[in-house]
């Protein structure tokens, strides 16, 4: 009967006000982090020194040729891995190296915060990649790790403050 007497404007004001009364969904990143997927393909690999036989299947399966393995023969007449080098700057995260490893000696890392000043710093040696006590191993292709990892979160979990010490950042490891 009557024309638009500002009903739409009032409706809009109500919509914005209801949104304003919601809790902010902002993630304050360095202070608060979300849990990544359990099977994240992180920027690093985790290399198990004990299981690796130096067969270099990973190096052969790598499309980019990022993995360099240099082996020698030790006194037990088995391979000793002298060099295991990964150029993470050229990695395409296809995961073929992890999937092809016949001895389950290679895993994806869960780290995703690798920032460097120089591309050369992205070339990791076997000492950077070696599996240790605080290695963050992704469950990619290795579902046996699933159980130990926290569930992925897409929104901030305010009850637990959103901070899950799932892994330490690369800086802390050094």
């Amino acid at each position: 009967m009557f024309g638009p007497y500002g009903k739409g404007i009032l409706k809009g004001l109500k919509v914005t006000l209801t949104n304003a009364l919601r809790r902010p969904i902002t993630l304050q990143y360095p202070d608060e982090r979300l849990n990544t997927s359990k099977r994240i393909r992180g920027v690093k690999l985790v290399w198990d020194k004990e299981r690796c036989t130096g067969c270099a299947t990973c190096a052969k399966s790598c499309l980019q040729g990022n993995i360099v393995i240099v082996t020698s023969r030790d006194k037990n007449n088995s391979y000793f891995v002298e060099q295991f080098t990964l150029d993470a700057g050229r990695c395409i995260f296809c995961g073929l190296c992890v999937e092809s490893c016949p001895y389950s000696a290679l895993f994806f890392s869960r780290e995703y915060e690798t920032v460097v000043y120089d591309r050369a710093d992205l070339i990791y040696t076997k000492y950077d990649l070696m599996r240790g006590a605080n290695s963050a191993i992704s469950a990619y292709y290795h579902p046996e790790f699933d159980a130990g990892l926290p569930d992925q979160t897409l929104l901030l979990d305010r009850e637990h403050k959103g901070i899950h010490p799932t892994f330490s950042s690369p800086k802390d490891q050094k």
Partner: protein
Amino acid sequence: MQPFVFSNFWAHWAIFTVAVLFGVLMLIVALLWFDRRFWSRFQIRVGPNRCGPWGLLQIPADGLKMVLKEDIMPDNADKVLHVMAPVIIMFPVMVAFAVMPFAASARGGLAPNLNIGLIYLVAITSLVGIGMLAAGWGSGNKYSLMSGMRIVATMVSYEFPVVLALIGVALMAGSLSLNDVVGMQQEKMWFVLMQPLGFLIFFIGMLAEASRSPFDYAEGESETICGVNTEYSGLRFGVFQLTEWMEGILMSCLVATLFLGGYSFLGQLWIYPDGPLGVFIGLVVFLLKATMVYLVLGWIKCTMPGRLRIDQWMGFAWKGLLPLAVLNLFIIAVEVVGFGRGEELPLWVIVINILACIVLILMWSRLWKTGGGRVNVRAVR
């Protein structure tokens, strides 16, 4: 016996001028921070909170950045106008605060009781349009000029309803002095209840005058790059920004003074004690009211970020607001003539005026249909 700062001319001058100038600038910084945190809640985020405690230093940091930036002058700019325009714009907004009754003056307060305060305000704020046009012309940029023209058109069109609404206030208060307007509201009731239609007209008109969203034709980033600000950089751009925020604060102070009872509490509900304590309470009450109005401006900005087409915009002023303002003035004039002005006015005119407001808005709502953006096919053929 009044305190020294109120009785001595120079002491009053120093306190008043410095306090108001400094206070208004500080108010901008504080309100802007508050506002940015407030806006961000509308977008479900937390807003600036990195710089200093709770992000309090964000605004000074932004200001510092603005000052340190390079100041660029376009080659084909009108040099004098380009330099002068920010000053022309900032000066009237700054000076308009001189008559703002921040606190009770009859008991020895801050504001000088200028007896033509309303006329002074209307006259001095119109100068902003000249400054905007100067900035648009002086930039040597066609979009800046177009934006300047649009601002002047807006200001001229919306000056009429605003002034007519102000006349209603002056009629009811029986005075042009802002202090008397506040005093009358303390005597009777807030004018937002006494003349709700006038309040709405004044609010919408002042939104346009102060170039606030949804009427921010001054910037109009989707149509005229950045409006008159396009060719400005560095400190001069900062002055433009500062003026925009100061206009917003001036508008909220005006609405609080003219329609929300200024420094007085609701009617005669609470009469402040005499002396400096009462002045201080009045100042706090006034600032709280102005802040609330400023937050409503932010709310409106977050709800309606877009603008109307300029012809719809002009039609709204001339076909919608102006007749309504005239009718509102007529109703108030009849009431004032019939029942007497100000304190003689019976309180039940509130009911009449609210009913008149609703009926008139419903009647006028048919006129506000401007096609809704659809092309009139018959006209095209």
